[in-house]
């Protein structure tokens, strides 16, 4: 099954390589990985989506925890959380079907961010089902190219994933 991990790391050179290398070395599958700074510039946050069984996930988390630059790992999979991914999709489009595409875009509350004679670029943010649905629909027109940010996730409510003590129900995986 797919798990979503929020990983707080020290913002130091080589940290991403350490994480990516660990996954490759131990044969863990990364579905997606998104990284960015947090409010504290010394700390970055990675959202890692892992395809694994429960036992493998346990190893993933334990092995990640052994990396010195990793500060905290939270398993958001079973926590109420908001999951989002941004995708840009370049679709074949011409004068005859552009309006039709426009309608799909509106229904999904996506945006057209670029138009040319033979194509449009659509930007959409959402959870996995929504993205899969629009991709399926748009494939009828011919998808030329897509790019995805990878999933990011945040706990709902005032709970936070923080370095240090376990917050409210921000359940520690270990």
């Amino acid at each position: 099954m797919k798990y979503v991990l929020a990983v707080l790391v020290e913002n130091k050179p080589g940290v991403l390589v350490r994480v990516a290398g660990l996954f490759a070395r131990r044969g863990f599958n990364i579905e997606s990985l998104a990284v960015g700074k947090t409010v504290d510039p010394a700390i970055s946050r990675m959202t890692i989506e892992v395809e694994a069984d429960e036992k493998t996930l346990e190893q993933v988390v334990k092995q990640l925890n052994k990396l010195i630059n990793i500060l905290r790992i939270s398993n958001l999979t079973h926590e109420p959380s908001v999951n989002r991914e941004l995708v840009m999709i370049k679709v074949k489009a011409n004068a005859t079907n552009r309006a039709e595409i426009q309608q799909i875009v509106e229904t999904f509350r996506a945006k057209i961010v670029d138009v040319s004679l033979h194509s449009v670029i659509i930007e959409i943010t959402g959870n996995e089902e929504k993205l899969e649905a629009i991709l399926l629909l748009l494939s009828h027109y011919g998808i030329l190219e897509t790019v995805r940010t990878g999933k990011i996730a945040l706990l709902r409510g005032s709970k936070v994933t923080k370095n240090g003590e376990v917050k409210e129900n921000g359940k520690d995986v270990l």
Partner: protein
Amino acid sequence: MVIEALKKENVDVIFGYPGGAVLNLYDRLYDADIRHVLTRHEQAAVHAADGYARVTGRPGVVFATSGPGATNLVTGIATAYMDSVPLVLITGQVSSPLIGTDAFQEADIFGITLPITKHNYLVTEIADLPRIMKEAFYLATSGRCGPVLIDLPKDIQQAEGEFRYPKTVQIPGYNPTYDGHLGQINRAIKALARAKKPVLYVGGGVVSSGADQLLLELAERTEAPVTTTLMGLSAFPGCHPLALGMLGMHGTYWANIAVNEADLLVAIGARFDDRVTGKLNRFAQGAKIVHIDIDPAEIGKNVRVDVPIVGDVKRVLTELLKKTEAKQHPDWLARIEELKNCAPRGYCQEPDGELLPQFVIESIYRETKGEAVITTEVGQHQMWTAQYYKFKNLRSLASSGGLGTMGYGFPASLGAQLGRPEETVFCIAGDGSFQMNSQELATAVNYNIPVKVAIINNQYLGMVRQWQQIFFQRRYSSVALGKGPDFVKLAEAYGAVGLRAEKAAEVAVVLRQAMATPGPVVMDFRVRAEENVFPMVPPNCPTCEMIRGDEE
């Protein structure tokens, strides 16, 4: 600054090899009162530091230059990493502005060693250096020990800065658990009280934690037999009545059967390696498993565990012993006695027959009374050492277990001897392995490091030959070493003493002569070429299904 930090860490010896990118470092060393041992290859420097660390418990320190100097360390670092040996390695790097330009002797040693170090650093500011040095020693020697590498660009070595060595370290992402969970410890105590057929399965964690006395107490109090891994051999006296010897692929017959029949297996500082477990789902099938280890990632990695205890072995055993009750298991011990009696005899040395390797190793045991510090190379001789040398004292064995590195044993013996100058140090070597780092004879002679190298000379890459014999119908592919060098002359060429034995009667004579010699000695024991190590568990078979060696 590096040298000052090393002094603060009470480093008394550095193993290394100079070059362009560490000229500044070596210039500082010139005036410092820290001993530097120049090996003849960087790989040997790491192995020597590793041998030093394993027998003393103190971190080994290594210097090497950038590029080829650094890459020559790789095998040694991986060896130490697999066996959790504390090392601090300092490599020179090209100047910061040149990094990434394919400069002369530039190699990305930070990137190369990421997967084989506990942690590593590339220093970018002189101001960070004292903190990094402090952290490196702390990381190497705390929690589950391991090698830590610091890559130090030339310009940083030249930079001046104020040296203020931090008193404490703060590494937010690193908090090893030392104290075991009390609830789990109580469950372990209950399991021990209930068990009728307990076995203690002991690994290198007991050695690195220094918990041999507590282990002895636990074994005796609960009357639980003890089997050890290769790494754990020195943690429990080999001649103790409760000692089962090593388990696993070349473990004793009775240890493997006992584990198979046990109703409780207490794994202490061990990691259920495939050489130990054989076919995983058949390992200790009938047993409840208690697993004590400092590394949470080891628990549940290979086998299901009923009672997991994360913590330092010493602390956990101390806590455990507070409430563990004395028990007797006469039936269980009788069963083990029975197993011992029906096990095949290991070997039979005819007085005038070919010299047998097992006899040589048992003779080394007899002549040193089990009191020597032993290092081994990798192969059949290593397994025979595990089977026939009964280790008495903690930290009296250094052998490459996890990585199985040929070429480890001889340089490791040099480090071991420097760490324990008063003691007799033997390197039990194979004729193949010894040749992987035999150039270190120059180091041994140059510093007069009086190690005794016993080459078990079977003129083969014996362990590989054994597999080819058993699993590939004797199709011996590239395993014959031929006549090889004359090891006696080789020793003499370097200025060491060379001795040879070809008959059983000569063995003790040669050993005594070697021990009476003040300097380094190489002994060439000409043994039967096609002798095999038994028992043997074929790979991926249950460990109770051994080739005993007496079937025919």
